[in-house]
């Protein structure tokens, strides 16, 4: 079971993905050739308002053919070690299925409750065509190290808001590998507020024409957190569209990294892609790194661009709020909240936004 991982265990330090969090550091024991025993998390689904989950939405153990269909077709390139490791240690593979044409107005919560020292789960995502849904994957529990591998596809013409959040927790390695079918419209959100160490590797493939993706990240790092996110978007279908907006508020002695790879394959005519990383540095000892990479192999593109901006809280904005009666602390908190709220408010409906804000708010006091 572990052999496919061991072939990829030695990573290339020159690859940007391992530059700030080497695999040795992200691996649960630090011995990269070790494939330790792990616990399986509890996984359940519910709706935000507590009503029952509609028919056609299920979570169940995946079959071999599910894994064959959704799990192995995607290539992690330089980052293969982490997903292969999670696949090797996870005892169970589950599949979240939403059948064709299902429309759910209330956000669906997939709760992953971890326990034990090492806890790993492989979750396949199989969204049918013309599905309209909002999915919140909530990672909680008290495992010392959590590994989550999410693989799968969003069906053609589906409209999906897919948010993954870890608001409390210890060490996390999360890998996403998801493809968008024809004309799928996906908003993929990540909210991370207090992982002591997180290595997040999110990859999306826009292989079919007309698909559209918005990746949003709202990251709050404090204390001695070490949060490293790598986001990769590959356009290979025609007339595809993607945007990435990643906001990190960095406080305490935290170290926050955002690396992105935007790749436009030859033949992806009419691709329109852009990525933005914003880092708000809140304390003297916080550190932020960003590497937004771009590889363009097609000339007939609408546009491809990326940008990154690092800076402190704007003093003019602080001054403005103080003239409105807020003390410095209140003004800072308001500006940090607004900074994090920009991508957060774009992750889905008001209901989803409200649910996320409620959970992240108390963590603002940490910085």
């Amino acid at each position: 079971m572990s052999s496919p991982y061991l072939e990829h265990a030695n990573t290339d330090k020159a690859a940007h993905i391992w530059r700030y969090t080497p695999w040795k550091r992200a691996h649960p024991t630090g011995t990269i050739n070790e494939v330790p025993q792990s616990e399986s998390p509890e996984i359940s689904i519910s709706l935000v308002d507590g009503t029952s989950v509609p028919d056609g939405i299920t979570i169940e153990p995946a079959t071999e053919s599910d894994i064959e269909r959704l799990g192995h077709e995607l290539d992690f390139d330089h980052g293969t070690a982490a997903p292969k490791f999670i696949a090797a240690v996870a005892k169970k593979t589950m599949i979240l299925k939403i059948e064709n044409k299902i429309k759910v107005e209330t956000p669906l919560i997939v709760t992953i409750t971890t326990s034990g020292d090492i806890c790993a789960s492989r979750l396949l995502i199989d969204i049918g065509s013309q599905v309209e849904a909002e999915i919140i994957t909530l990672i909680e529990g008290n495992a010392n190290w959590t590994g989550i591998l999410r693989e799968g596809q969003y069906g053609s013409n589906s409209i999906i808001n897919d948010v993954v959040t870890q608001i409390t927790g210890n060490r996390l390695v999360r890998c996403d590998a998801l493809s968008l079918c024809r004309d799928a419209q996906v908003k993929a959100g990540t909210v991370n507020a207090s992982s002591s160490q997180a290595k997040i590797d999110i990859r999306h493939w826009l292989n079919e024409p007309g698909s559209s993706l918005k990746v949003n990240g709202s990251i709050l790092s404090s204390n001695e957190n070490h949060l490293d996110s790598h986001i990769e978007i590959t356009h290979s279908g025609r007339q595809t569209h993607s945007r990435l907006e990643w906001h990190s508020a960095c406080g305490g002695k935290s170290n926050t990294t955002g690396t992105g790879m935007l790749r436009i394959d030859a033949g992806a005519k009419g691709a329109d892609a852009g990525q933005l990383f914003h880092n708000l540095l809140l304390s003297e000892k916080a550190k932020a790194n960003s590497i937004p990479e771009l590889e363009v192999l097609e000339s007939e593109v609408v546009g491809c661009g990326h940008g990154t901006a690092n800076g402190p809280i704007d003093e003019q904005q602080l001054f403005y709020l103080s003239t409105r009666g807020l003390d410095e602390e209140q003004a800072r908190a308001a500006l940090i909240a607004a900074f994090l709220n920009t991508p957060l408010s774009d992750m889905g409906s008001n209901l989803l936004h409200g649910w996320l804000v409620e959970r992240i708010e108390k963590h603002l006091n940490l910085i």
Partner: protein
Amino acid sequence: MSEDAREAVGDYKAGWHDPENATIRFDYGLSEQVVRDISALKNEPEWMTEIRVKAFHHFMERPMPTWGNMHMLEEIDFDKVCYYLRSSNATEKNWEDVPEDIRNTFERLGIPEAEQKWLSGVTAQYESEAVYHSIREDLEEQGVIFLDMDSGLREYEGIVKEYFCSVVPFSDNKFSALNTAVWSGGSFIYVPSGVHVEMPVQAYFRINAKNMGQFERTLIIADEGSSIHYVEGCTAPTYSTDSLHSAVVELIAMPGAHIRYSTVQNWSANVYNLVTKRGVAHENATIEWIDGNIGSKLTMKYPAVILKGEGSHAEVISVAYSGKGQHQDAGAKIHHLASNTTSKILSKSISKNGGRGSYRGMVTVSPKAENCKVNVVCDALLLDEASRSDTYPTMEVGNSGARCEHEASVSKVSDDQLFYLMSRGHSEEEALALIVNGFFEPFTRELPMEYAVELNQLMSLEMEGSIG
């Protein structure tokens, strides 16, 4: 010129070569003995020989980079490179004294004419050694030292010993180790305090022989409050086999000094151009790299500035043109070590006929560097479907007061712009050439006029045959 070579380089106009008239030519391949022989031939002090030997061992032990165009790098056969070739026995001060065939080469490249018209000084390097060298008398009287590096070592050993390898240690990377082991030629410049060298000084590097390695070493020290503009140009003949150019440039800008280093690299498409360029800027000093990469097979060049002194400033403006079979992997590195330092990087690249242009950059702000400002802009134009453009920027910010911005975009030539120019009577080809020249304008306006005109003509030539 062989058919292969003609195919590879197209209309490269500096692609002729002269018969080889070497007075000394080393066998192909590198060994400790070759390194010691180069040093002995130059009668160097022992400390320099020791550095060379240490660098040689470091080069041998150090693996090839595992990033960049590894495929092209692996094609370099270090055993098939000639590491030292001397075609003239002396560095002359009068063009008349330079051997005729070499003088003819530089006359065809327009160097003596340019010197008379608009330069403060010229050094011309042919293969491994400088063959001509001069500086305006008034500058010499003000104490400006402008020598080829070998003469610099002989005449100002103390200064060279103090600064050599101080900015780029031989252990910095594999190619800086190679250069330190076998360096020959290059420029040594010292500008005394308060002296402003108004007109640029120029170095021109020419590789003539096949399978040649050129490893010049340049050291420029601008003392307090002084300024200098150094311009270098490079060409080589067109051969079907590859040559290697691996230079190291070290700049030291003392407090308040200003160094501008302009390069128009137009090596033929069989030259590997693997160069390490780095400067240190002390308090309120400015270092500017104006870097044009038009030729070569593979260029890996990331001009760097270490902003060591408070209030220092760095600027890198680079353009790259990648045609068939070319990969221009260029960029910039800025390290903000002191407070109130600022930097600006502007990178522009054009890829055509399957060429690949990459921007690879790094900006770091150390935790103690307060109130730093960084602005990085990368623009790329892709002219056809076979070409490719990459951007690999890295930003590491360790101070909360730093304001760092990076933006990049990749696009094709706008149909609207083409249509507008064609409606004004230009052919599509002319319109494209105008747009490309306009795209490079932020770079060309920083060059001396003669270079800018030359570059525009060069780009128009490259754009010929782009349409249809």
